[in-house]
């Protein structure tokens, strides 16, 4: 009995320490995680780059799956006509990109694409800033391999002059977000926007490694 009584306080104490340590660890992790997100959103993201090629390439696999989905790729075509639909066929009526990416003369994007989605199936999805990349910076996704796209995305001469900060901010661009709200009957990208953003930031802040060409 004596032994038993001697052991009980010691066991309770151990439990206290174990649980306490666990809560402390979870607290630190949560705080650290918040800190990390704040830093990633901060202006000088370069200082937060911690190179990790494995994590970076793994994150890019997710990024690539989203960017090559119809919701993103359809407005990043190889030619000057946008793509359309879940099968990424050429856009009906063959509207042209134009110099500014907003179409030409009577065929401007916003002539049909309203500031918001038009209700019903087979109607034009909407956004106040609907456009393709401009003619002098086409930012083509269609047909790009993971290696090519990764290299292109971080090249300011091909990505719309975006540095790390602007690239990270671009994940929350209105038109990017519109990819997850394209109106009735259109498939979503394969990941949620939150998952995409996490993978995007992870890829960039672990060194933006490009997967090897196969």
């Amino acid at each position, binding site marked *: 009995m004596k032994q038993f009584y001697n052991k009980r306080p010691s066991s309770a104490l151990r439990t206290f320490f174990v649980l306490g340590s666990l809560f402390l660890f979870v607290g630190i992790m949560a705080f650290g995680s918040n800190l990390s997100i704040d830093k990633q959103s901060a202006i000088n993201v370069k200082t937060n780059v911690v190179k990790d090629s494995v994590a970076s390439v793994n994150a890019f696999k997710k990024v690539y799956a989203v960017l090559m989905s119809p919701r993103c790729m359809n407005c990043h075509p190889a030619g000057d006509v946008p793509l359309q639909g879940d099968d990424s066929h050429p856009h009906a009526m063959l509207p*042209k990109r134009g110099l500014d990416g907003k179409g*030409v003369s*009577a*065929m401007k994007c916003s*002539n*049909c694409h*309203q500031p918001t989605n*038009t209700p*019903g199936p087979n109607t*034009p999805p909407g956004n106040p800033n609907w456009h393709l990349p401009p003619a002098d910076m086409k930012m083509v996704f269609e047909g790009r391999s993971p290696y090519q796209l990764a290299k292109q995305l971080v090249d300011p001469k091909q990505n719309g002059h975006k540095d790390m900060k602007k690239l990270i901010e671009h994940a929350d661009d209105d038109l990017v977000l519109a990819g997850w709200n394209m109106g009735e009957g259109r498939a979503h990208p394969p990941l949620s926007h939150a998952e995409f953003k996490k993978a995007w930031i992870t890829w960039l802040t672990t060194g933006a490694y490009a997967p090897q060409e196969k």
Partner: protein
Amino acid sequence: MITLNINKKNYKLDADPNTPLLWVLRDNIGLVGTKYGCGVAQCGACVVHLDGEAVRSCVTKISRAQGKKVVTIEGLSASNNHPLQKAWLELDVSQCGYCQAGQIMSAAVLLRENKSPTSQDIDDAMAGNICRCGTYLRIKEAIQLAAKESSSDK
């Protein structure tokens, strides 16, 4: 109440802001030159000008048109004498005529932005206007004629 400026006149309308502009033009105001074709911005029969742009009025809510200038086929010219309207008559472009208001309104934006359009420019600009009668060749010819007439007038 929503106030719309249509063909230089102001109209006060007691209508849902989500009402398509085409409905208001035809049913409330009685401007029936603009036609309903597909209702989903696919055919071009309903094209009108909104601050000079060739919008599809079947999907354009009247809330978007508020504070802007709407021009329909009835307001394109003072007495049906826009170079395109004259060329259309000259070449007897229309067959059934249903799509022609939209065709002319799209062509008017093209000629405003491009005084001497090439064949490719015309194709690019008019690709969104469908004609079931297949008057495309005459439409193209009329646009070329209107461009020529407009430049020789100056």
